[in-house]
């Protein structure tokens, strides 16, 4: 496990009687896309929050880049290099595209407490921001107000903002949701490239995408990981078929 970027080990989280995380362990290795799937209510979002930092587990630890980050804030984890995208776009909608990525660069550079120099004229911030936009292909839209972007473009922008952090790992929550076939395809190719730079923990509903993309898959049901393995292993796992795929692959 020493080469894992991200290691979740035996975390528990309960809300009253509901065990949302019931002894979950998983890890993310360099260069891989590790997909997390599971039916609604399986506890995916609770798990993500514990990994990203919004929620503290009752017990268990989260290691990131060789450091125990269990009690560390969201912002601190981001500065350590955890890049995150959201299911519902979390962007500053009134900002331009460029301002959003510069915001990412501000966070990355730790310059949020510099008070006098205009952010949008700071060469270092702009360079980092534009490089990220270039990567996702939004360089030409940098003056557009974010709320005017299409759904797919917002997704791209989310990735670009995460890229400004030069992350050591990505945590992506349903990046394919609501994308058309073309967009999905393009994004799939992009993620395949991206994983070489930093591994991706991918939470995804879109099974086709998951099977096309993932190097490994973990299946979460009722707060427990019932299976982890490559696509074929998971496909053939009887528990998974019953608990989850059974519904999807009824035909």
């Amino acid at each position, binding site marked *: 496990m020493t080469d894992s970027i991200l290691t979740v080990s035996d975390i528990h989280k309960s809300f009253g009687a509901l065990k949302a995380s019931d002894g979950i362990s998983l890890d993310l290795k360099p260069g891989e896309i590790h997909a997390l799937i599971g039916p609604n209510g399986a506890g995916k979002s609770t798990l993500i929050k514990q990994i990203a930092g919004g929620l503290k587990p009752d017990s268990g630890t989260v290691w990131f880049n060789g450091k125990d980050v269990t009690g560390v804030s969201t912002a601190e984890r*981001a500065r350590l290099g955890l890049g995150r995208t959201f299911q519902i776009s979390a962007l*500053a909608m009134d900002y331009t595209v460029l301002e959003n990525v510069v915001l990412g660069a501000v*966070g*990355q550079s730790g310059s949020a407490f510099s*008070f*006098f120099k*205009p952010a949008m004229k*700071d060469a270092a911030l702009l360079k980092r921001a534009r490089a990220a936009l270039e990567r996702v292909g939004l360089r030409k839209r940098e003056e557009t107000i974010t709320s005017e972007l299409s759904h797919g473009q917002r997704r791209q922008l989310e990735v670009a903002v995460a890229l400004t952090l030069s992350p050591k790992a990505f945590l992506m929550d349903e990046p394919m949701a609501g994308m058309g076939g073309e967009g999905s395809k393009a994004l799939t190719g992009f993620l395949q490239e991206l994983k070489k730079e930093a591994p991706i923990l991918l939470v995804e509903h879109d099974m086709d995408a998951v099977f096309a993309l993932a190097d490994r898959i973990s299946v979460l049901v009722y707060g427990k990981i019932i299976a982890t393995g490559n696509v074929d292993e998971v496909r053939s796992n009887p528990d998974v078929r019953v608990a989850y795929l059974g519904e999807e692959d009824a035909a």
Partner: protein
Amino acid sequence: MMRERHINMIILALLVLVPTYAHFAEEPFTITLATRAVIFALAGVGLNLALGQGGLVSFGHAAYFGMGGYAMGILASHAQNYEPIMEVPFLIEGTNSMPVIWLVAIVMSALLALLIGALSLRTTGVYFIMVTLAFGQMFYYFTISWPAYGGEDGLSIYVRNQFPGMNTLDPIQFFSICFVLLCAVLFLVNRLNKSPFGLALNGAHQNEERALTVGINVYRVRLVAFVISGAITGLAGALFADLNRFVSPTMFSWQISGEIMIFIILGGVARLFGPVAGAALYIMLEHFLGGLSEYWFIYLGAILLFVVLFAKGGIIGKLSRKEISHDG
């Protein structure tokens, strides 16, 4: 359609021209009104940093306004009576020098804002509004019932404090001092809004999750903004006290907090010049509506209601036909 920047320039120009005209037409009261507008604008610019840029709806900014006022009142009253403020462990004397008073007002209100902000920012939404209101009320009742500095009677300072090289009792000169301060603060706040800090503050307002996940310590950014905001409003309080040569607990009252918010919404939330336009408009409404009827508050209420319901973006928003400010 006018650019917001042009509108801002026109507002500033009017703020200079009207009192200048009044000076030569020998209508000192008009200068007093303009000074009042400038001081209220300054208070509004302070609140707008927290409220407009940061989305922190503070209903208790009267606390800093009052703190600034009392900084002036206490320093000047000790100077007036030739009594030191304290002698042990070291001697602190009163003063009637404006720059010193401003400095003390800024520092004291910043400290107060640090204290209140550190506690209040743990809450969000309505709770934040209400807890800031409660802190304001706390100071209001404290100043009323604490006898040392006049209680409800307040403190009268018979002569306006001094500024090197100026005759502060001359209305136009005092106006100039206030106006220059307003311009300086507008310049600084403008730089602040455009700085990485401003980007982070407003970014956190638009989407807190996003700011957190790019590694910005949102709580600390907000706290710093809240402190700067309180300090600016405190400076305005010190000037207001000097304008009236009087301070009293009403400076701490929740109606003052409400009025400062009204300047912002009348002018346009999160616009650099929103509070300036709003305060000027408010003073004009007060002046002219007050002449119409004993019940002029009804009209004021109706206008305010109209602006809130139908004129999002305030007057600057209406004039520039743009609901959201981008270059402000």
